[in-house]
């Protein structure tokens, strides 16, 4: 499958969103709203649940399915308070020793007046810094679109996994074509050049695992994800917290170091 086809699949109508994974992977999800600073951003869903009995903190960028949901969720593009809500839940996870699981699906952090006024850049930066030294295991799973800094703000993790048709990029192919090449028609070429598919990113050492989609069979995908998550989180829970953070830094430290 070409990069542009993967991109279309990642954005396709009816593709499972963050809430679908939360419902299918965990038991007893309790949603926690708000950043205790400004408000509650519906583009980010955060809370506590159990994974095979183990309490975990779950955070998802949520796009919504129908028009009404999409509008409510701002199409999965978070404002600063969304990232701050996520960080608050991560700090609570650290306090109570719960692993963190993030689901990423966003075209990017929202670009608007309010987002800038409330410090979109600062909110993302804070997450990058704080996640790097979080003393509990963190796994981020890209389930659809991974748009730039707004995706990375939930992906400073011990391991990053991607569904086989998910994408992750520094800029959308549309943005790349129009900004860099001044030719909006070159989206297909841009998608190729940016190396945004799960397979490419695994080759580049940016993701650890590509998760097969079994032709969209969510039960099958979640069955495999659950087993992998349990194994990885149990393994990482046994690692000394300082060592875990040091390994996370080393994971990012080597990218571009040669």
């Amino acid at each position: 499958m070409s990069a542009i086809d993967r991109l279309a699949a990642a954005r396709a109508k009816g593709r499972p969103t963050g809430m679908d994974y939360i419902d299918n992977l965990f038991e007893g999800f309790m949603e926690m709203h708000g950043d205790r600073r400004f408000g509650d951003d519906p583009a980010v869903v955060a809370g506590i649940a159990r994974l095979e009995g183990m309490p975990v903190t779950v955070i998802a960028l949520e796009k919504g399915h129908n028009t009404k949901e999409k509008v409510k969720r701002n199409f999965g593009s978070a404002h600063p308070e969304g990232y701050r809500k996520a960080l608050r839940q991560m700090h609570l996870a650290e306090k109570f020793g719960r692993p963190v699981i993030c689901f990423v699906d966003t075209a990017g952090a929202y670009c608007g007046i309010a987002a800038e006024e409330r410090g979109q850049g600062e909110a993302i930066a804070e997450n990058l810094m704080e996640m790097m030294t979080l003393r509990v295991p963190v796994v981020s799973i890209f389930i659809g679109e991974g748009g730039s800094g707004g995706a990375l703000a939930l992906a400073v993790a011990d391991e990053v996994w991607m569904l086989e048709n998910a994408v992750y990029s520094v800029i959308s192919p549309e943005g790349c074509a129009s900004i860099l090449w001044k030719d909006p028609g070159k989206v297909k070429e841009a998608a190729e050049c940016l190396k945004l598919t799960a397979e490419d990113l695994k080759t580049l050492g940016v993701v650890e695992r590509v998760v097969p989609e079994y032709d969209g069979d969510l039960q099958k995908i979640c069955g495999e994800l659950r087993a992998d998550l349990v194994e990885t989180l149990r393994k990482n829970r046994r690692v000394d917290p300082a060592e875990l953070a040091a390994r996370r830094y080393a994971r990012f430290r080597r990218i571009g170091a040669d």
Partner: protein
Amino acid sequence: MLRKDLFRRPKNEPEDYGRYTAKAHPDIPGEMCVLCPSCKEILFTGVLEDNRYVCPKCGHHFRMNARQRIDMIADEGTFEERDGAMHSKNRIGFPHYEEKLKQARLSSREREGVVCGTAKIGGYDCALFVMDSGFMMGSMGTVVGEKITRLFEYATQNSLPVVGFIVSGGARMQEGILSLMQMAKTSGAVKLHSDAGNLFVAVLTDPTTGGVTASFGMEADVILAEPNALIGFAGPRVIEQTIRQKLPAGFQRAEFLLEKGFVDSLSERSGQKEQITQLLSLHAKGDLT
């Protein structure tokens, strides 16, 4: 009348760049004029240079290159460059990236978009990094990320404060995801430097946007900003396209960020060195009497 490299006085011209120079430089008169984009006053370059590239009439801060900034801020003869030889390669095979890099090297006379090193400022030792808008708009690729990361690690090992002059259009698209990863990498280095009790002062200059704002640009203990500098996550044009309306005057300018609580203080060049020296003095270690 306005030469593009008017404000560039390279100190470290690499030996092999001469052969790329297509044509001999035309005769440059001793005094030239520039138009202030803000108040439209015609200014002599000599006057501007003596005034730290600030318009004497209206206070407009012109862009400066990295070497000029280092001259302005570091004590004379104290700057020692680190990792100056690092240069980018086309890691993901992006079309025409090599040519872009070559052009950037020629026009900026730097090997990459940031100059890093150690220096004394007002007598205080520090690690100093200065980004250069003349090199692909100060965009952050793997080399910019790596150089800044190394500088923070060196500063952590040696308990040095870091002073950073920031100018950037954001992540460098031509390095794809690898440039995005530099946001996380540099943030990690800043965090470890911070956790060890060291000071980081950032000076945001025009323009500071995108992935650099959303990483080390907004992670300093003290964030200073030059007057009227554009500072934001999304660029104004992207926002206008998204919301389909014009942005209000002054939006995303340094004064706006100050009002919204994201900048500690404005930093006019006339008092900048004194301001930074004072900060270094207030945070100096082992001198608490």
